[in-house]
């Protein structure tokens, strides 16, 4: 063999710096991502581990304790019906996070499948599927949600379902675009020329290459779903009490704006803002790390 094993210098990399580890290390070198991830972890601990340490009654109304300002017994005061605000922030956070994450996952999975089918098949089926997406996009989400929520009394599951119903459109468009461009790429053609079928093209080549944008988008979807849930709560169509979520807490607090009960407004408001920003930071950082990998391609 006369061929030269060229450029050995570039081949000396440690084989460990790949895949998941690599993405994680790229994410961890990004300060914003660390901040985002840190905030998310802190809130998860606060919401789930918090109630184990800090016991409060979030079931029974106790009007004698209503709207107390922050004190030693109630670090964040109590709300208008006497629930401890700090404890309620923990319980409410569970709902907000769960609904947000579940809706985002559901929307991402459904949207990805829809977009992948449309993009890979192309032609007539693609147009038909994408017109459905356009039509659903044309009806502003809140109008649709408000309508659906007014038909049935909302539960957490119903909210997850309806939020997912309006959120899958973004990932569907995104994945379709990616699939359309990926399926004409040389390496997909190459698999076909070896005799590989469409399943292999989709699952071995298109999906792994599109997964990056899907993950990034899912992160943003969580943030958006938490905001949508808050908006629905404000419009009076959140999950009814005694269950709580940050949006409900915030919107009921707002009715006491003029009474000066600031502890009913700012803690849930800031919690929403922080968590949403955190997910956005994380999404941005993930996108950058995926971009870097594609640039090095």
């Amino acid at each position, binding site marked *: *063999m*006369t*061929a*030269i*094993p*060229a*450029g*050995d*210098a*570039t*081949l000396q*990399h440690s*084989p460990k710096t*790949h895949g998941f580890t690599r993405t994680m290390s790229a994410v961890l070198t990004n300060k914003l991502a660390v901040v985002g991830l840190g905030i998310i972890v802190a809130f998860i601990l606060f919401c789930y581990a918090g109630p184990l340490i800090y016991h409060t009654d979030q079931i029974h109304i106790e009007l004698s304790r209503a709207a107390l300002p922050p004190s030693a017994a109630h670090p964040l005061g109590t709300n208008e019906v006497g629930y401890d605000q700090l404890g309620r922030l923990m319980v409410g956070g569970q709902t907000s996070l769960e609904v947000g994450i579940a809706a985002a996952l559901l929307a991402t999975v459904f949207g990805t499948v829809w977009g992948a089918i449309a993009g890979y098949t192309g032609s007539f089926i693609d147009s038909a599927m994408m017109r459905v997406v356009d039509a659903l996009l044309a009806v502003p989400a809140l109008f649709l949600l408000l309508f659906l929520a007014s038909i049935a009394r909302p539960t957490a599951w119903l909210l997850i379902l309806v939020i997912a119903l309006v959120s899958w459109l973004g990932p569907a468009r995104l994945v379709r675009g990616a699939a359309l461009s990926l399926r004409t*790429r*040389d*390496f997909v*053609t*190459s*698999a*076909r*020329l*070896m*005799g*590989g*079928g469409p399943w*292999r093209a989709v699952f*071995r*080549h298109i999906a*792994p*290459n599109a997964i990056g944008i899907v993950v990034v988008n899912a992160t943003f979807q969580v943030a958006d779903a938490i905001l949508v849930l808050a908006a629905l709560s404000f419009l009076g169509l959140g999950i009814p009490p005694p269950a709580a979520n940050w949006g409900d807490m915030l919107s009921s607090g707002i009715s006491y704006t003029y009474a000066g009960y600031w502890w009913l407004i700012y803690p849930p408001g800031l919690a929403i803002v922080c968590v949403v920003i955190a997910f956005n930071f994380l999404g941005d950082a993930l996108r950058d790390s995926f971009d870097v*990998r*594609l640039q*090095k*391609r």
Partner: protein
Amino acid sequence: MTPVVTVVDLHTDIALSKGTVRPVSGVSFTVNKGESLGIVGESGCGKTMTALSIMRLLPPGGRIVGGSIALADVDLVAMDEAGMRRIRGDRVGMIFQDPMTSLNPCMTIGDQVSETVLLHREVTREHARERAAEVLDLVGLPHAKERMNSYPHLLSGGMRQRVVIAMALACDPELLIADEPTTALDATIQKQILELIDDLRTRLDMAVILVTHDLGVIAGHTDRVAVMYAGKIMETSPTPELFANPRHPYTEALFRARPENAGSDRKLYAIPGLPPDLSDPPRGCRFAARCAYATEECRAQEPELTGDNHAFACFHPLGINQQAAPNPPTPLATAQAAAPLLEVRNLVREFPVTSNGVLQRKIGAISAVADVSFTVGAEETFGLVGESGCGKSTISRLLVAADTPTSGSITFDGIEITGKSNRELRKYRGDFQLMFQDPYASLDPRMRVGSILREPLVIQHRGSAVDQENAVVRLLDEVGLPRTALRQYPHEFSGGQRQRIGLARALALRPKLIVADEPVSALDVSVQAQILNLMRDLQREHRLTYVFISHDLSVVRYVATTIGVMYLGKLVEIGPAEQVYTAPVHPYTRGLIDTIPLADPQRERRKSKAGVRGELPSAMNPPSGCRFRTRCPRASDKCAVEEPLMLPFSVQGHRAACHHPLRSPIPLSTSAHTAPPRP
């Protein structure tokens, strides 16, 4: 001789996140009025950064850290930004590589050219536009006045490059810097643009710096040459001198790697290894690691660039007229009498053009491949050559059944493959494989090399998992990659290494036929030589048949036993490689040969006026009769009416379709009796 620009000991750094790269370290040269300097080198050698340093247009992080650049009497390094702005476009003009992206898509070409004038001269808009029309006319844009209000996307690549040149010349600069001005263009257009730059240089008495990777481009169009490697000038001299008598081993290696200089029975000289990492250049001579003549001295100490007229930086220069040892021979594939493996009959591929309206009616068709027939014998290399848009890539896709022809037939090893469904084709697919042009796009970025090479075996259910693992290791050995490559991802490899991986994948199923679509056109000349040698070795070992597609006739001549020349969907000439290359009969083939820039200044200057003129017509409405007639110097009325038939020109199967061939065909009867059954 008045020097226009004098560069002395230029050092340029680029700060990147992972360290500082030094693409230019100690470059000096002078360009006089009316003179043309060629800077030549492979990608990453610092030639473009040298050009950008003169313009002070370095990319983010880029900075001149030492040396001086004197434009007549002013030092450009010390100049402030406002002063530089007054110089750019006025005293120094620059042309860039890719005319498709270097024009603003949202501005008319008239506005873009007159902008240069408005920025530097106190004139009215009307005057500036008048000047713009004048310059556009000067650079040979047809109907310049009427085209002033056109947007760039309506122009072809060659025309756009003329507009870029017009912008650079609008203020009569003293110095014109052309950075790979023709690399993105077809050979026939390249020649026209290079001649235009030459012509303008003489007429306007400008100094020109021509930056290129192609020694052929340098040979015909420059007075002096500087050969750059790893940020330094290795050798510089008057052009004829350098070509007649290269002294630096790197210059010599560049010449020997060019396929045009190699007999097709010889191996190409391939420079081993890769250029050094410029963020941490080696001590000593930067070429030492790849140099055949290097000694301890070379690795310890850096040679100075010495000599007056002909300077070189080497401790062990080649002697004057010292003949380099000939390249080692490579046994030719003995395929001449072999049975046909691939038969293509009357192949037609049309792409429908639909109206943009509601019903998407079919309003026409792009005739990409029009009635093409040829035969490829087993273990032969069939070279298919032509300009971009001639249909050669479409044919490559048809041959491996990646696309279905509109009509015609393709028989592979006696089996008709057209009209078969994907499912039916599956069992034949292992016998014919495609090697792609772009080594970046053809490997899945998320798969390790091991999985990439195993994939074809998995798909075709060849052997057990252990067999497959072993086969993959064997493949890596065969294409000269280390076994550590198995666990790595494609982005960790250079372009040449990736092309090796692509070749290994094509080989995995032990095919009989490999269709290679421009397999080396994205590579530097030294790496190109490595891949071409490898392809030949593998052909011999595995008794492969190649269909080798390229725009570069000199590469095709080197690798192919038979050459087919395509023009606008038609096969215009076909025959044994040497016959087609040395004695072409079709005016298009002749013109194509004349447009190849040769690394030989004498031959280059002799053929100066020949070549194919004008631009490729649209394949949607191809010219009637002979499709080449609109650009043909020999065309007559007959060519417009009657389509020429393929006629034989030698008993070895040299045929061409032309009413006015460069010599007469042999009588049909003779050929019928003595010609072999192949074309």
